[in-house]
C-alpha cells in the first residue's frame, strides 16, 4: 500500500455509504469520515486535501453539515496546480453561497486566476464567479470580466459573457460598461459566443433602458439577419437537433427580438418577415421545433401589432391545444393566457377545448386551464362557463377542489347577472364542495339572500332540500341553518313559491329535525352548532307547536363542555321560560343586512363579525348594523323595500322595526328587565337602538339624548307609523301589536318630556386630548337612580390602548360601573368608548351629584393619567 495514503479512497467511502442498510448506519459512516477529514484539516494535510474535499461534497449532497470544509476550498483554490483548483472551485460553488462572508476571502485568488496564463484556469474562475459572486465581488472583478469578453479563445469569451450577466444583475449600475462589448459579441460566428452574447444583450435590456435603446437602434437588423441565416442554413451536424440547426440559438434570438420589438413599430416591422418565416417553416413534430414555435408565438404576441402574424400565431396555438402531447397543451394554455390581452376573441374560440382541459387528469394542465377560463369569463358567457366549471367540480380530486371552488365563487360573485342565479350556483358549490368554501364567501351568500326579499322562501326551501342530501358540507349546513332560523315559516308555509320550484311539504317538526340533526351531527363544528341554537330559538316563536321540543333540544346543551354552547343554551332557555312576553319580539327576523357595509368590511379585510365562531346572538345584529348616522332613513328604506314581500304587512313590519331595535336592548338575558310601559320600551329602543355599539362610527352617540334629536326621531317614527297605517298592506292587516305599542306611546312627544327622563348631554370632562360626554337618563319610578352613559372621544392623533375609566363618589352616592365597550380608543375621534354607570343618590333632592374621575390609558405603550372632577351635573339628579 502507498505509504502516503491515509483513510479511504472516495470510491470506497461512497461504496461504504451505499451499503448502509439503515439511516443510523449511514450516519455512523459519515461521522467517522467527517472525523477523519477534520483531523486531516487540523494537521493541514496537503496530499489528500482534494480527495477530502471530494468526500465532503458527497457528504454535503447527502444533507450533512460540512461548513468545516469551507476553508479547505479556499486553500485548494490558492494552490498552483490545475487539479487542485478544479476541485477547489467546485467545492466553493457547492459548499458556499454568495451570502457567506468567507466568500470575500476568495476575491483575491479569483482575480489572480482571471489573469492566469492557462485559459482553463481562467475558465474555472469565470465559472465560479458567474455562479456565486456577490455584489461586492461583482464590483471588484467587473473590469477583469469586461476585458475577458475580448479574450482570444471563444470558450473564455462565452464564459465571460454569462459571467457579465451575473455581474449586471448584482450591480445594475455596471451595465453601461458592458453595452459595447456585448454588441460586438453579436457579430461572432461561434455559436457558443453568439448564444451567450445574445443572452447578455437580453439581460442588459432588462436592467438598462439605455442598453435597450442602443441595441434596438444598432443591432435589430443584424439580429434579424443572423436569425435568417440560421433558419436557412444547411445541415450542420454539430448543432443539429431534430433537423433544426441550433434551436437554442433560435430561441434566444427570438427572445431578444421580442424585447427589441416591444413598443417600437420600426423594430417590429423589421422582424415581421423572419417571424412569419419561422412560424411557417419550422416543423412541429419534435419538441425542439415546438420550442421554437412557442417562442416565436410569444414574440409575435408581444411586438407591435401585425394582424396577419397574430392570426398565424393563434393558429399555431390552436394546433398546440389539440396536440396529444401534454407538454404542448400545457404551453399552449400558458401562451393563450398572454394572448388573451391581445386578442380575447380569438382565445374565446378555443373555449370548448380549454374547458376540456379543466377536467384533464394532469394537475398542471388543469390548473393552467382553470386560470385561463377564469380570464375568459365575462358577463355574456358566465352562465355556461360556470355550469361547466361546477360540473368539473364534481369530477375533480380533493386537492383541486379547493382551487376550483375559490375560482368559481369569485366568478359567480363578480359576474352574477341576477340574484336567483347567484343563489343557485352558490348552492351547487356548497353542496358539492362546501368544505372548501371560505368564510367570507358563505357570509356573502347570506347577505345576498337577506337582501333578496322575494327569494327568501325559495332560498330556504332550496337549502332545505340540499341539506337533506349533503349534510357533510359544513358551510352548506351553516347557511341552511341560518335560513331555516330566519325564514322557517316560509319553508313550512311554502311562501313565495316560484314557478320553477317543485312543491315541497315540510312540517314544522321537519324543520326542527333539520336543526337538531345539525346540532347532533358528530362533525359539526362549534360555529354551526351555535348557529343552530340561535335558529332554534328563533323557530320557538314561529312554531309554537314545537316550542316544547325546541326547549328540550336547547336544554340538552346545558351541560356542553364548550362554554359558548353551554352559555347559549342556558341563556336561551331563560328567554324561553321567563321572558315569554318579549320573546317574539326578541327573535324577530334579522333586518336586511347591508351589502355596502359588508363589502366594505371585506375590502378592509376586517374580520366580519358573522365569521367569529363565538358570534353571539347580539353580535349578529350589531356587527352588521348600519352606520349610526342614518338609522331612521334606513328604516324607511326598508319599508319600501319590503313592501312587495308577500307576508310583510304593515303591522308585521313595524314589529320588525321594533324587534330589530329591541334585540340588542334586551339581548343580555340575565340583566334585561321586561318593560313596564310602552313609552319606556320606545325610549329604550331609541336610546339603545340608535346609540350604536362599540364598533360603529364616531359621531356615534351624543346625538340621541339631546332633547332635540330625540324629538326628531320620535317625529320620524310617528311619521312612519302613519305612513304604514296609510299603506294598503297595513289597512288589510292592522294587527294588534302595533296598536298596542302605539297606544302606549300615543300622546305626543311633549308628554315624554314631562316624564322627564331626558337630560341634555353634558361634557363632563375635556382636556386637550380627551373628551368625556355624559348622557343622563332616569329610571322611571325610581328618581334616586340616575343612568349615565359615558362616551369617550379621543381628540389626539394617537390611539389609546388599555383605556381605563375609574370614578369615585361621596358616601351619599352609590356607583355601579358597567364594563366599557372597548379598551382601545381610536385616534382623532374616529370612534368612541362607551361605558354605562348607575348612580343612586340617597339624598335625592337635597344634594346633587358629584364625581371624581381618573382616566388611564397608554399611548405607544407609554402610560398617561388624567384626573378631574365632574360637578356640572344637573341639579335635580
Amino acid at each position: 500500500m502507498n505509504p502516503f495514503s491515509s483513510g479511504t479512497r472516495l470510491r470506497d467511502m461512497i461504496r461504504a455509504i451505499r451499503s448502509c442498510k439503515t439511516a443510523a448506519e449511514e450516519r455512523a459512516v459519515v461521522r467517522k469520515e467527517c472525523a477523519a477529514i477534520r483531523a486531516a484539516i487540523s494537521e493541514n494535510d496537503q496530499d489528500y486535501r482534494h480527495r477530502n474535499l471530494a468526500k465532503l461534497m458527497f457528504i454535503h449532497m447527502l444533507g450533512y453539515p460540512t461548513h468545516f470544509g469551507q476553508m479547505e476550498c479556499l486553500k485548494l483554490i490558492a494552490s498552483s496546480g490545475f487539479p487542485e483548483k478544479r476541485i477547489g472551485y467546485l467545492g466553493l460553488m457547492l459548499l458556499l453561497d454568495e451570502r457567506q462572508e468567507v466568500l470575500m476571502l476568495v476575491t483575491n485568488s479569483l482575480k489572480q486566476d482571471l489573469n492566469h496564463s492557462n485559459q482553463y484556469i481562467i475558465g474555472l474562475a469565470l465559472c465560479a464567479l458567474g455562479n456565486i459572486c456577490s455584489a461586492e465581488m461583482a464590483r471588484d472583478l467587473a473590469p477583469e470580466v469586461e476585458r475577458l469578453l475580448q479574450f482570444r479563445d471563444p470558450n473564455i469569451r462565452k464564459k465571460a459573457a454569462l459571467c457579465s450577466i451575473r455581474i449586471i444583475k448584482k450591480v445594475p449600475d455596471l451595465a453601461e460598461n458592458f453595452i459595447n462589448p456585448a454588441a460586438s459579441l453579436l457579430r461572432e460566428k461561434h455559436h457558443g459566443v453568439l448564444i451567450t452574447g445574445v443572452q447578455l444583450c437580453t439581460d442588459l435590456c432588462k436592467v438598462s433602458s439605455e442598453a435597450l435603446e442602443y441595441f434596438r437602434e444598432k443591432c435589430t437588423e443584424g439580429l434579424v439577419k443572423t436569425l435568417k441565416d440560421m433558419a436557412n442554413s444547411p445541415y450542420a451536424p454539430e448543432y443539429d437537433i431534430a433537423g433544426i440547426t441550433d434551436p437554442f440559438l433560435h430561441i434566444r434570438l427570438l427572445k431578444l427580438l421580442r424585447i427589441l420589438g416591444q413598443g417600437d413599430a420600426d423594430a417590429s416591422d423589421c422582424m415581421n418577415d423572419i417571424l412569419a418565416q419561422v412560424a411557417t417553416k419550422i416543423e412541429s413534430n419534435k419538441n425542439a421545433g415546438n420550442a421554437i414555435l412557442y417562442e416565436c408565438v410569444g414574440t409575435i404576441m408581444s411586438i407591435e401589432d401585425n394582424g396577419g402574424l397574430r392570426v398565424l400565431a393563434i393558429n399555431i396555438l390552436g394546433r398546440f391545444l389539440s396536440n396529444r402531447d401534454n407538454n404542448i397543451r400545457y404551453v399552449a394554455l400558458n401562451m393563450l393566457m398572454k394572448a388573451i390581452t391581445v386578442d380575447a376573441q380569438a382565445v374565446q374560440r378555443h373555449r370548448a377545448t380549454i374547458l376540456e382541459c379543466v377536467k384533464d387528469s394532469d394537475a398542471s394542465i388543469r390548473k393552467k386551464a382553470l386560470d385561463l377560463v377564469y380570464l375568459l369569463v365575462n358577463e355574456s358567457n358566465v352562465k355556461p362557463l360556470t355550469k361547466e366549471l361546477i360540473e368539473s367540480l364534481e369530477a375533480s380530486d380533493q386537492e383541486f377542489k379547493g382551487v376550483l371552488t375559490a375560482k368559481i365563487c369569485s366568478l359567480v360573485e363578480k359576474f352574477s347577472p341576477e340574484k336567483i342565479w347567484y343563489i343557485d350556483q352558490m348552492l351547487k358549490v356548497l353542496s358539492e364542495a362546501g368544505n372548501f368554501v371560505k368564510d367570507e364567501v358563505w357570509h356573502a351568500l347570506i347577505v345576498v339572500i337577506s337582501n333578496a326579499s322575494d327569494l327568501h322562501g325559495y332560498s330556504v326551501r332550496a337549502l332545505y332540500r340540499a341539506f337533506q342530501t349533503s349534510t357533510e358540507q359544513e358551510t352548506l349546513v351553516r347557511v341552511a341553518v341560518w335560513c331555516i332560523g330566519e325564514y322557517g315559516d316560509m319553508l313550512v308555509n311554502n311562501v313565495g313559491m316560484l314557478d320553477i320550484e317543485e312543491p315541497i311539504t315540510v312540517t314544522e317538526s321537519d324543520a326542527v329535525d333539520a336543526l337538531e340533526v345539525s346540532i347532533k351531527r358528530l362533525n359539526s363544528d362549534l360555529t354551526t352548532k351555535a348557529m343552530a341554537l340561535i335558529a332554534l330559538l328563533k323557530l320557538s316563536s314561529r312554531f309554537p307547536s314545537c316550542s316544547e321540543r325546541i326547549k328540550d333540544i336547547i336544554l340538552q346543551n346545558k351541560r356542553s363542555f364548550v362554554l359558548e354552547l353551554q352559555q347559549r343554551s342556558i341563556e336561551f332557555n331563560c328567554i324561553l321560560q321567563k321572558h315569554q312576553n318579549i320573546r317574539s319580539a326578541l327573535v324577530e327576523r334579522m333586518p336586511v343586512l347591508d351589502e355596502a357595509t359588508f363589502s366594505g368590511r371585506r375590502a378592509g379585510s376586517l374580520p366580519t363579525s358573522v365569521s367569529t365562531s363565538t358570534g353571539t346572538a347580539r353580535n349578529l345584529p350589531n356587527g352588521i348594523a348600519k352606520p349610526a348616522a342614518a338609522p331612521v332613513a334606513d328604516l324607511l328604506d326598508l319599508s319600501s323595500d319590503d313592501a312587495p314581500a308577500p307576508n310583510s304587512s304593515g303591522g308585521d313590519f313595524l314589529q320588525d322595526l321594533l324587534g330589530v331595535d329591541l334585540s340588542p336592548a334586551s339581548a343580555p338575558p340575565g340583566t334585561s328587565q321586561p318593560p313596564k310601559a310602552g313609552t319606556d320600551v320606545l325610549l329604550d329602543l331609541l336610546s339603545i337602538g340608535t346609540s350604536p355599539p362599540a364598533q360603529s362610527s364616531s359621531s356615534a352617540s351624543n346625538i340621541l339624548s339631546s332633547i332635540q334629536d330625540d324629538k326628531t326621531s320620535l317625529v320620524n317614527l310617528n311619521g312612519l307609523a302613519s305612513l304604514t297605517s296609510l299603506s294598503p298592506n297595513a289597512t288589510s292587516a292592522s294587527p294588534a301589536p302595533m296598536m298596542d305599542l302605539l297606544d302606549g306611546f300615543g300622546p305626543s312627544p311633549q308628554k315624554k318630556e314631562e316624564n322627564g327622563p331626558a337630560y341634555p348631554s353634558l361634557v363632563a370632562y375635556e382636556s386637550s386630548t380627551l373628551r368625556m360626554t355624559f348622557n343622563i337618563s332616569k329610571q322611571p319610578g325610581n328618581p334616586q337612580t340616575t343612568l349615565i352613559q359615558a362616551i369617550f372621544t379621543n381628540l389626539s392623533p394617537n390611539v389609546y390602548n388599555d383605556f381605563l375609566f375609574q370614578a369615585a363618589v361621596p358616601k351619599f352616592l352609590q356607583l355601579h360601573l358597567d364594563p366599557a365597550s372597548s379598551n382601545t380608543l381610536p385616534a382623532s375621534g374616529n370612534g368612541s368608548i362607551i361605558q354605562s354607570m348607575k348612580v343612586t343618590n340617597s339624598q335625592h333632592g337635597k344634594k346633587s351629584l358629584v364625581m371624581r374621575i381618573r382616566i388611564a390609558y397608554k399611548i405607544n405603550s407609554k402610560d398617561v393619567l388624567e384626573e378631574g372632577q365632574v360637578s356640572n351635573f344637573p341639579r335635580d339628579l
Partner: protein
Amino acid sequence: MIHFVLLISRQGKVRLTKWYSPYSQKERTKVIRELGGVILNRGPKLCNFVDWRGFKVVYKRYASLYFCMCIDQDDNELEVLEIIHHYVEILDRYFGSVCELDLIFNFHKAYYILDELLLAGELQESSKKTVARLIAAQDSLVETAKEQASSISNIIAQATK
C-alpha cells in the same frame, strides 16, 4: 434563468444539486424534499411541468433518474426540456451509455460537465462536441499533473530507499 438543477433518483436520493440563485442550506433541503414529493408522485404520461412557488419546474425522467430544472414563469419550458436532454446526451457520450451508478461514483465529473453547459443559470454551449472537447482537455490536464506527481513520488521513493 435556471434557478437550480436537481438530479433525484426514483427513491428520492439526491444525485446532483446546482444552485444558481442563493438558497440557504435549510431552504435547499426543504426545496429538495418538497419537489421530490411532487415530482416523484406524478404519473408517467403527465406533462413535464410543475408550477411551484411562482416558478416552473421542468423535469424529465431518464431511467431511474429525474432531471429537474427550476425556471422563471416566462421562460420557455420546451427549451428547458431540450437543455435537459442535451445534458443527458453529453453525459451519455462521456461515460458511454451513462447509468445512475456512473453519476454516483463520478459525481464531480457530472458537475464539471454541467459547468461547461450552464453558467449563471444560462446555457453556455449548444454544441455537444465542444463540451466534450473542453472536458477532455481539462481531464488530460489533471492526468498529466497526476503522472508528474506520481513520478516525483517514485523518485522520492527511490531516493529514500
